[in-house]
């Protein structure tokens, strides 16, 4: 009974914080702001899943939590690389609009 009360309190507090993270993700002026807020939301959702695993007494939910951690990390890394690539593409087009960045040497890409 005591455990149940503690778990419910944790879940309520974390869900309010999750809402605040969502506000940050919507308001963030830059792309990095939004990605950072999504990363924070992933962290809080991981804690919520771990609390649920103990509350429902289902051990396999912790495996889902581990997979969630890996996918959240992968999402941040891949989205950062994608946005750096998009920015460089746009920049190259602005610099010389003639050849539209079709044939360029890829050796100087520092990503």
């Amino acid at each position, binding site marked *: 009974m*005591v*455990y149940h009360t*503690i778990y419910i309190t*944790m879940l309520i*507090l*974390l869900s309010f*914080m999750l809402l*605040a*993270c969502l506000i*940050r993700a919507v308001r963030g002026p*830059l*792309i*990095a*702001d939004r*990605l*950072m*807020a999504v*990363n*924070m939301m992933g*962290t*809080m959702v*991981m*804690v919520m899943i*771990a*609390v649920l*695993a*103990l509350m429902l007494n289902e*051990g396999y939910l*912790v*495996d889902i*939590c*581990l997979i969630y*951690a*890996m996918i959240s*990390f992968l999402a*941040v*890394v891949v989205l*950062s*690389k994608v*946005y*750096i690539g998009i*920015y*460089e593409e746009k920049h190259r087009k602005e610099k010389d609009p003639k050849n539209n960045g079709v044939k360029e040497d890829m050796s100087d890409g520092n*990503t």
Partner: protein
Amino acid sequence: MGILEWIKIMIGSAFLLCGVVIFFTELFGVFHFKYVLNRMHAAAMGDTLGITSCLIGLMIFSGFNYTTLKILLIIIFLWFSSPVSSHVLSRLEAATNENLSEHCEIYKDLSALEQELKDREAAEEKGANTL
């Protein structure tokens, strides 16, 4: 419930409370600072310390079994992955923001930074001597 059970509940609740307070501090910092690279400093704290204390509290509640081992695995994975994702995010910001020098000082190479630090030290020594 025996006295040991109550001690376990108290220690676990203390860790959980610590984690929630750190998450709250993280949120406060993220809403308080004005620029991404400052906000990232607050956000990385919650990613490592906040989730670690929350999960340590849950490990104490769970007792000695396989669930505890898996939670420990999550903590170790996060300790490796969170600094890497912070680094990648700040690199995204440094690569895409053209007005970066409005927010922080930029040194093109390390020798410029070393030179400025040397100058600052020399100026401080000079000031100390005149005093």
